């Protein structure tokens, strides 16, 4: 059974999808390739509960073939309708998600997300974590894509250390705050300082 969405959910998508999604994809790629660097993205005006960066990430990475899990406050009618109209991604349970969206608290326990299989490590979830703010201050990040070390205000360290230990399996994370976005792939080592 489908019902027509709220009219307000129909605005705020990319106006020039080919160009805007290509630009956004480049920024997200950079963020993932250089963990901890903070990039700016633009083009989405998602419903108020979502940051611009999370909206851009959804518009760029998700489509009708990717299962999306909305966690906590992100799972509201307005966001669901916005996703249905602009993205078409099916909403799924956390255990089946290709992408998940919510605050770090709402996404707990993160051990329920897919980490891939030895033959297909790519069949894992990408978590889009809504943050209050993003600054290069906090736990130290080292590993592929980081020359010496960098810092990012991660919500914790234990979960990311446990995830790193699963490598080459594990989930990947994007952190979003306002129009800023940073990446933390499963390959990055995290240390509390």
């Amino acid at each position, binding site marked *: 059974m*489908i019902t027509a969405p709220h009219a307000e959910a*129909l605005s705020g998508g990319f106006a020039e999808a080919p160009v805007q999604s290509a630009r956004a994809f480049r920024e997200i790629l950079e963020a993932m390739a250089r963990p901890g660097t903070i990039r700016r993205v633009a083009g989405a005006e998602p419903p108020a509960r979502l940051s611009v960066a999370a909206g851009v990430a959804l518009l760029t990475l998700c489509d009708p073939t990717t299962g999306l899990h909305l966690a906590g406050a992100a799972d509201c009618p307005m966001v669901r309708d916005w996703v*249905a109209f602009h993205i078409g991604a099916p909403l799924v349970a956390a255990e089946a998600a290709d992408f998940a969206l919510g605050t770090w608290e709402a996404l707990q326990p993160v051990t329920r997300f897919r980490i891939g299989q030895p033959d297909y490590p790519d069949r894992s979830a990408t978590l889009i974590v809504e943050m209050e703010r993003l600054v290069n201050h906090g736990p130290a990040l080292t590993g592929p894509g980081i020359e010496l070390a960098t810092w990012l205000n991660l919500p914790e360290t234990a979960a990311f250390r446990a995830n790193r230990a699963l490598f080459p399996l594990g989930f990947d994370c994007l952190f979003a705050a306002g129009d800023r976005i940073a990446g933390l792939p499963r390959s990055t080592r995290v240390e509390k300082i």
Partner: protein
Amino acid sequence: MYVAVKGGERAIDNAHGWLAEERRGDRAVPELTIPQIREQMKLAVNRVMAEGSLYDPDLAALAIKQARGDLIEAVFLIRAYRTTLPRLAGSRPVDTAAMAVDRRISATFKDLPGGQVLGPTFDYTHRLLDFALMAEGEPPTPVPSPQGGGEAPGAEAEGGTGLDAPPSPLVGEGWGGGAPHMPHVTGFLNRDGLIEAAQPSDATPPDLTREPMELPADRALRLQALARGDEGFVLGLAYSTQRGYGRTHAFVGELRIGRVAVEVDIPELGFAVEIGEIELTECETVNQFKGSKTEPPQFTRGYGLVMGQSERKAIAMSLVDRALRWQELGEDFTGAPAQDAEFVLMHCDNIQATGFLEHIKLPHYVDFQAELELVRRLRAEAQTMQEAAE
């Protein structure tokens, strides 16, 4: 082993230039337009749409023009274009019983409700070249129909016939009229339990364009593969079943060609709407079946559904579909190619086939060098052994 080769850029550019020139042909002859191909080479357009697996007559016509009439090359162009399109939705299953039919015949029932409608068919032509089509100027005058009931094709364009007087109803005869509805012939047999029933289901079918095909493939996947499979390959397989390689004793229960509406659930509307109409050819065979260890004697069914007007393909598809069902019907596997799902499904796609076939003409210098050395070494060894023996 594949090794990249460099060079020949200028030669390739020149080859492309010459190709464009050859495509155009003699400039004294007017250039073909896309609408001309779409309207006058319609069956070629239909084939490219069916095997390209994308219904868009203009694009298929463009592909035929670009490919210089090489239909497999045109299918290749359509398949390549198709991959650039976002998949917006899946339609509701089309209702072929509501088809606006141009043609509808049965080889098993002569008095079927709704009647036998020949439509624009080659069947009763004499296969004599019509030199009138070669003559410039006026199109040949159609021969008026000796039967009552209808106008000769083309006559309607001259005066506004038919718009005031409703046509003799092709549809709804004895079926309450109203919305066009022409039930399937197999439905009559079904009422008497003489034919296996089709189990309706609204489960989302598997899609070989999204997930690589894995065997054993269920019937939905087999039908998808056959619907986009090469007409010549499917025809050859179907013919082989008629000649005894996996015989299925098929009759054409019904063949229909016409237009159906495509209905899609639109999330932003909250309901389904018709977004357009496509032409389809549907064939259902009725196959004699003496019963097996698991099934009673009854008629069984083979099914073919193809985009556009393409009845050879639709009939062939339904024969091969039926042959592939030997296992579920408890029949014996006789080793016939048409019964072998792996053989059929892995070889019916002409783009896969032509890609692999034609790649052997591309540079394989390193492979061949290795082969050459191997042959030389074996010859040298053979010679040494021969000399030692002497």
